[in-house]
């Protein structure tokens, strides 16, 4: 059980730098998810924590120990790989007990620990099978079992669910969350799936091109994205982002539509400034189909291009400022293509980003 601290960690492959000096502190027992598009350096970062990749610069601490030059076996970590990496020539119980056997534990100790892990993960009936005789979900569980038998200080997961079908993925996600509640260990979890990140994490670390863009609780990053990248990456559907410029405390879009700036920006933005106006589908709702919410609201007439009924709500697609935007309709009724609906936009929940730096101007 331990904290993990990354200080200015750099990774270069030859002359190519793929991780550019990241700083990150992970608290004891915290569940941290590294999320970002493919190729942004998540796995590399995780593998540096594991000791499978050398770090080119900086410092990694696990607990009180600087682990920069320690091999993986001396870091007291365990890892679940994307392809499970179960040992094909060993049975499930041998797979589970392998680390303890290497550590020179007695047979009795090993079988007790294996039985315990099997119990936690519901692997009881599978102990004598080989990995080839298991389904994807079972292999996944064995991989997690192998990771927990040793009571590591830190658990590392690299996209553990990406090889499972959608249904199983949702199920295993819940199991991982439960597992964390049960065994209380620091977890660093890598995924490219923002839904996984949002549902699992205590704190989300959003990465892009080898940099950390934002760190925060799921709610933080959802409600206060630091830039348009995070705004577009987190949340489903992604945030509506429309380019425009400021004119007398209004944002004017290329199609001539204009919206007032959120109340806390009134009088703060110079005329002519290029900005990106951002809001989530959740804060744009047709009149009469809103969730009761008070606040500063502006009305907006939208021609609906298309409606996606999802049952208890519909997602409405329309166009504003030359961009496709999405609105959310609660207690939906059928909507015709081309129908014009008056929608309410909750201005306090809207964001203004600088057009060139893409930074959220509220931060």
């Amino acid at each position, binding site marked *: 059980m331990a904290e993990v601290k990354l200080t200015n960690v750099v990774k270069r492959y030859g002359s190519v730098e793929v991780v550019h000096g990241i700083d990150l502190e992970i608290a004891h027992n915290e569940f941290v998810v590294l999320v970002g598009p493919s190729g942004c350096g998540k796995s590399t970062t995780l593998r540096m924590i*594991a000791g499978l990749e050398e770090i080119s610069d900086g410092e990694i601490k696990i607990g009180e120990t600087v682990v920069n030059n320690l091999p993986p*076996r001396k870091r007291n970590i*365990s*890892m679940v*790989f994307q392809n499970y*990496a179960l*040992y*094909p020539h060993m049975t499930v119980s041998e797979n589970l007990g392998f680390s303890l056997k290497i550590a020179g534990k007695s047979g009795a100790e090993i079988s007790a620990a294996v039985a315990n892990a099997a119990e936690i993960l519901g692997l009881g009936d599978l102990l004598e099978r080989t990995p080839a005789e298991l389904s994807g979900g079972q292999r996944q569980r064995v991989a997690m079992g192998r990771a927990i038998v040793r009571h590591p200080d830190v658990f590392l997961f690299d996209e553990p669910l990406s090889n499972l079908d959608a249904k199983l993925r949702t199920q295993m996600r819940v199991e991982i969350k439960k597992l964390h509640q049960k065994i209380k260990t620091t977890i660093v979890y890598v995924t490219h799936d923002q839904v996984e990140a949002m549902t699992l994490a205590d704190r989300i670390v959003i990465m892009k091109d080898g940099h950390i863009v934002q760190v925060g609780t799921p709610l933080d990053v959802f409600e206060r994205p630091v830039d348009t990248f995070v705004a577009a990456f987190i949340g489903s559907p992604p945030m509506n982002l429309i380019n425009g410029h400021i004119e007398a405390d209004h944002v004017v879009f290329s199609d001539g539509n204009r919206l007032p700036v959120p109340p806390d920006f009134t009088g703060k933005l110079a005329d002519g400034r290029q900005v990106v106006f951002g809001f989530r589908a959740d804060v744009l709702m047709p009149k009469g189909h809103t969730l009761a919410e008070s606040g500063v609201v502006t009305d907006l007439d939208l021609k609906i291009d298309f409606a996606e009924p999802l049952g208890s709500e519909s997602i409405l697609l329309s166009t504003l400022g030359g961009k496709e935007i999405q609105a959310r309709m609660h207690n939906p009724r059928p909507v015709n293509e081309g129908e014009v609906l008056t929608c309410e936009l909750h201005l306090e929940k809207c964001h203004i980003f600088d057009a060139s730096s893409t930074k959220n101007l509220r931060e």
Partner: protein
Amino acid sequence: MPTRTKTVLIWLLTFTVMLIICMPGLWIILSAFRTNGEILTKPAIWIPQNLTLDNFRAIFGFGENVIGVPVSSYFRNSLVISVTSTFLALLIGMTGGYAFARYQFPGKSSTFLWLMLSRTVPGIALSLPIFIIWSRLGIIDTKFGVILVYTAINVPFTVWLTEGFFRQVPNDLNEAAQIDGCTRWQAFWKIEFPLAKSGIASAGIFAFLTSWNEYALASQLTRSTDSKTLPVGLMDFTAQFTIDWAGMCAMAVIIIIPALILTFLVQKHLIAGLTFGGVKG
């Protein structure tokens, strides 16, 4: 064509081809149990009249006509040379194959290519240079000299075969093992080696058979009873004007038997090795 007829035809064809391929071998085995007289009769006697173990008795020194070929020394030499060179070739080749499969280093692909190209040189073309160098070094007519040559011949093939097998073992596994507490070395022996062992076993048998059967180079490099191998020893049955065909065939059978036994023992691995059906999961 009905499948039945097709099956029969395929069997017939296979049988004929196999018969043609195996004929010389079968003839040798048959001749090993016949007398020189019967072997040399013209027209040939196809169905043996009286089979005898005399040829073997002669080789092993029982019976009335003892022949002067020190088969047991040759056998021992062959065994020592083949086993040692196979062991060395496996050790070196496996290490090399592992390195080629797991590590990136400058000049990797060209090194690999050159290693494989060395196989295109016919061994006999090297016999003169090797002979000259070996005689300068004073290792002509020693087992050590032959072992050295055979090891060198076998290493490229062993590298190639084991490289393929190690590449099939996902690197994740060795990383998982390291995280589970293994050193790099332990990860190799406990995880990667067992998973690649089919490949290693087949590389081993190929190396052994190459060494066991090699004639051309050994005939140049060995002279005395202390270093001559079985295939070279076969020539002892040729005198200036006569050839003892029956004795030669009997000895050929003796040469074949260990190779045959070994092949059957590792048959399972050999098939996996040849089909590259190695590791899954």
